[in-house]
């Protein structure tokens, strides 16, 4: 990482903000994991532990009216878009105050008003959807960008390829990313594809690609900014491969014994929060006392959020019947 590049392209306040969101993501997801282990959260829990720099880096590079169709390890994007820890925890607890009112769980949150498309478990399903979001921007002549991605496993799906191809053919303002965390559930990359770099897939669609250190929030932010600016300028889609490592199991029930311990040890040294702290120290933007202070702050926010979530009401059974169909006043404009 060239320090001059960082200081030239990212403002100090923005970098500190990214650091805050890295810490908030980690604190929130650690809390969620603890609640899961206590049996207080039911269902699946998929965290971004060790991968927080990706969502924080790209979401902080977007404008407010751009639209994100996130991956299921992109908690940082929700937080940057204004989802509070309380809302998120209410969602995980199946409470009525969560963004799905209890209809869906874990990271399946969405809100068009905040430019967040709800995640679909069928990986890569939202890539064509984000392409359509970008198509709407292009048809209406708006200078807005859609940002979407999937994991290494998701790039095997036809929808990944159909979306990439369509976006490239029509020069749409969309950025695709892959958070290559080396495992799709238990399947290592070598059993997922016969190439080393997922970025190679972009060549087939005539799309430029970049390989980025996914654990370096500044690198993710800068690469995302370049791709977003390119899309906004009408030059079409870019593909970004964020190299990273999934440090927990696929979900929290999974001890991930299929991942070699040495691999995890190696990547632990590249932890995105650690890396961000090293960067901030090198730039003279922060020291240990500051880092501790941020840690205390996010901890308090998460605990306040948990209090809100726990005090929130559960939905009543018959609410299951509500919301199958939309009404005209709910159509976006």
């Amino acid at each position, binding site marked *: 990482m060239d320090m001059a590049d960082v200081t030239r392209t990212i403002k100090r306040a923005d970098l500190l903000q990214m650091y805050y969101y890295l810490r908030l993501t980690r604190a929130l997801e650690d809390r969620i994991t603890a609640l899961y282990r206590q049996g207080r959260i039911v269902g699946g829990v998929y965290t971004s532990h060790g991968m927080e720099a990706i969502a924080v880096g790209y979401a902080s590079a977007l404008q407010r009216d751009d639209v994100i169709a996130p991956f299921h390890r992109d908690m940082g994007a929700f937080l940057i878009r204004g989802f509070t820890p309380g809302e998120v925890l209410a969602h995980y607890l199946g409470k009525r105050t969560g963004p*799905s009112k209890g209809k869906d769980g874990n990271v399946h949150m969405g809100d068009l008003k905040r430019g967040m498309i709800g995640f679909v478990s069928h990986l890569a399903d939202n*890539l064509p959807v984000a392409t359509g979001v970008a198509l709407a921007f292009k048809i209406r002549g708006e200078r807005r960008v859609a940002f979407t991605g999937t994991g290494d496993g998701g790039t095997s799906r036809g929808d990944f390829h159909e979306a990439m191809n*369509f976006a490239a053919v029509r020069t749409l303002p969309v950025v695709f990313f892959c958070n290559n965390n080396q495992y799709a559930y238990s399947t290592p990359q070598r059993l997922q594809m016969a190439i080393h770099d997922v970025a190679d897939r972009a060549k087939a669609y005539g799309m430029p690609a970049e390989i980025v250190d996914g654990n370096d929030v500044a690198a993710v932010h800068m690469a995302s900014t370049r791709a977003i600016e390119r899309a906004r300028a009408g030059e079409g889609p870019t593909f970004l491969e964020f190299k990273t490592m999934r440090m927990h199991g696929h979900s929290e029930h999974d001890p991930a014994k299929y991942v070699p311990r040495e691999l995890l040890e190696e990547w632990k040294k590249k932890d995105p929060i650690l890396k961000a702290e090293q960067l901030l120290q090198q730039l003279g933007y922060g020291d240990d006392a500051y880092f501790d202070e941020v840690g205390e702050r996010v901890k308090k926010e998460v605990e306040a959020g948990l209090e809100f979530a726990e005090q929130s009401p559960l939905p009543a059974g018959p609410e299951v019947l509500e919301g199958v169909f939309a009404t005209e006043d709910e159509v976006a404009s």
Partner: protein
Amino acid sequence: MTTTTAQSEVTYLEAISQALDEEMARDERVFLMGEDIGTYGGAFKITEGLMAKYGEWRVLDTPLAESGFVGAAIGAAMMGLRPVVEMQFADFISCAFDQITEVAAKNHYRWGAAVPMVIRAPFGGGVHGGPFHSECPEGWFFHSPGLKIVAPSTPYDAKGLLKAAIRDPNPVLYFEHKFLYRRIKATLPKEDYIVPIGKADVKRVGNDISLITYGAMVHLALEAAELLGQEGIDLEIVDLRTLIPLDKETIYGSVRKTSKAILLHEDNKTGGIGAEIAALLAEDCFDHLDGPVLRIAPPDTPVPFSTPLEEYFLPKVSDIVTAARKLAAY
């Protein structure tokens, strides 16, 4: 249908084209997507001339990738546009099954995002299309909460239901029967009209047996009703027009009057729409029934190609006559 300001007769196909043209002129949010719909005007020429009129971004030729472009339509719809997607043949909708059932159908329920879009699907047999160009796949989607499904049988309904579908804030599957495209004509009102989604239509009033059907089978039923009338069996023909939401009021009203019901459809028999309506009648109209609820539908096979095979496969007037005579004896 008649009106004082009548225009010349149009085919079922032209009625669909008119609906698209008029909705695009009325609402700039409406745009079309699909394979070969632009320059070529579509495999059946439904969209002919529309690209020249509205431009290549409102009549958008897509790559050959149904899942990809249905997904894109969902995204555009969530941004407030009104995409109308053309499946070249309804059979190909299976490639987009996941996007329709998992994304379009569930988005509003899960997180409140409206998906106002239409998928037009030319369906049905009788055109020597074989197993991949003759299917009636509506049954697959009939079981998916969050979708609306319509299937018009006349030019009037084709135009009015397509307009209603485009104006609906939900994903609507519009099954247009390609056997009817150029075979039936009608004079349509000049002024704007819609046929509301969720309303069945009694296409023939009768007293003895309710024959409940939709799509091209409505015409088969009307033909059979003429024959049966000659022997004193008076059929009432209920054209469902909308499959979801089902117009139970009209269905029940008819069956409570006649006390007898035949369900006729071109989709194969097992787990079909007829099965669902038969169950509803058993649950809600049991006291009114004077005989068994009968189903007429193709066997559980793919749609075959060769003429004698397809003729055997598809329901025939004689099937209806036989069933009606059997039921009339109760």
